[in-house]
């Protein structure tokens, strides 16, 4: 039970928000994903025990919501909005170029394990197309020149972390 040991206080604080432990299942899944990089079977089991739920129910919730990743992702999880409003602002072309730049297909991860690239639906930043979220932080008004710079920064950050 790594989560309860490491985040006992946070978990209790989360429980205090709701009259029902089950309401904490989404925050706990976010926590498990942050801790393990994805919602692993161990993470599901732990969340189920914390929220006193059946692991099958927890798994169904993890599967329903797109932000819970049920497989490991690259260190930088790039989700490009290619929905209508962004597409009118050139998002489809940007997404094709980004995939070509990284040499991956839709949903793929680079060989060095750094970048996973996928397209997603509207992220509420339509006036700043093309845009993406990297590990849930927004990067806006992008073009490939700006993007190459960001990719280089992330690569340097990852090399430093090693």
């Amino acid at each position, binding site marked *: 039970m790594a989560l309860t040991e490491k985040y006992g206080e946070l978990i209790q604080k989360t429980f205090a928000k709701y009259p029902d432990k*089950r*309401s904490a299942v989404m*925050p706990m899944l976010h926590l498990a994903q942050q801790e393990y990089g994805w919602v692993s079977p161990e993470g599901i089991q732990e969340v189920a025990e914390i929220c006193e739920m059946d692991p099958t129910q927890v798994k169904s919730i993890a599967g329903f919501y*797109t*932000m*819970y990743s049920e497989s490991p992702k690259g260190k930088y999880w790039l989700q490009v909005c290619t*929905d*209508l409003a962004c597409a009118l602002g050139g998002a489809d072309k940007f997404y094709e170029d980004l995939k070509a730049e990284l040499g991956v297909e839709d949903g793929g991860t680079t060989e060095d394990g750094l970048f996973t690239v996928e397209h997603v*639906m509207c992220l*509420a930043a339509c006036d700043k197309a093309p845009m993406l979220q990297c590990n849930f932080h927004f990067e806006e008004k992008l073009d490939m020149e700006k993007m190459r710079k960001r990719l280089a920064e992330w690569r340097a950050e990852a090399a430093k972390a090693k």
Partner: protein
Amino acid sequence: MNILLRGRDIPDLHKLDVYLKHGGYEGLKKALSMKPAEVIELVKASGLRGRGGAGFPTGLKWSFIPQNEPVKYVTVNCDESETGTFKDREIIETNPHQLIEGALICAYAIQATAVYIYLRGEFWDQGHALDGYIEEARKAGLVFDNIAGSGWSCPVYTHLGAGAYICGEETALLESLEGKMGQPRVRPPFPANKGGGLYGEPTVINNVETLTNVPWIMVQGAEEYKKIGTEQSAGTKIFCVSGHVEKPGNYELPLGITMRELLYTHAGGIRGGKQIKAILPSGGSGPIMRVNGNDDAILDTKLSYEDMAKAGSILGSASIIVMDEDTDIAWVATKAIQFFKHESCGKCTPCREGTYWLEKVCERIMANEAQLSDIDLVSNIAKNMQGMTLCALGDFAANPIIHTVKLFPEDFKKHIAQPSAPAVKKAAQPAPAGD
């Protein structure tokens, strides 16, 4: 004039001390000096209507909450996921305390037990920042215990979703808050009734923009608010303009201004001096409007609930997506249905199966592999979804098909009439993440 986007005029308005310096929490204090029922009457008199899309009178919604129930909730809808909508995000980033204050006034009016602000999970940074603003207000005695020394207490909590458009539907939002899959409930009972709300208790669910109006109404009064806008659409509205305009962005303007004024005076006109072809005035879900160039009289339509309905569309959340003369409307319809297919929660068969098949046939049309009868087929599928589902998503998904085929038949036919034409690059991509 900015009531909601005051953060553009006042630097650092998101900080509590700055907000207080500019009249912050005065609306709440005024409400606390009144009887809860008087607060509801005032909001009713202001003519404020829900800004999430439905336009339901806000005060009337509050008045549905039974007074004798001991446990009641306020839930703030910040799931903002409609294609083309990005207004609530600017509010919570630049004017968060006005939302917290508005939510507390609502909570006081219905004597709520707690407030939950439900944010789409992608508002990760904004949600965590909001926790900080709530904590600031708590330390100043403006939220949680003995609010502003009134003896009345009410906690305010945030709850992050995890990527599901459907959670903007109010009963799906409640399910999600209760730790379940975000699937709409059967109504009745309605959320305002015992048995229908959060944890089965009577609940008010209001959009971020709606509640952010309330402190201003409390301070300035219902009559002042009614002076802005039209008779049936009081106040200002944030118009989210995106697509082929020179200056996409949020524009807070009085309801009742014309589409022309919004797009040409404020949003800089059509990009590259082109002619306008179509407008989706309420994101992907509302009926598309055909515009025959920049001189079309339809651009003189007033942006109000009543005038947009008369023009055959809706004001909705006022997420205005603009398309120029080069846009292929069959491609637009395909993009829209890809969205709804991805976001259908799967509970009702007409929506789950209908969006699946609509996507398939639309992608076939875009690949120039369809037959003429396929255009009737998509209309037919869409019409069989309308009114057949528990929530509005089924209707929303049918709208982009029914109205595009009706208003722009030539854009669909060109994919069929010229089988030798080079295949248009598919709008279709593999299913988005998490599908």
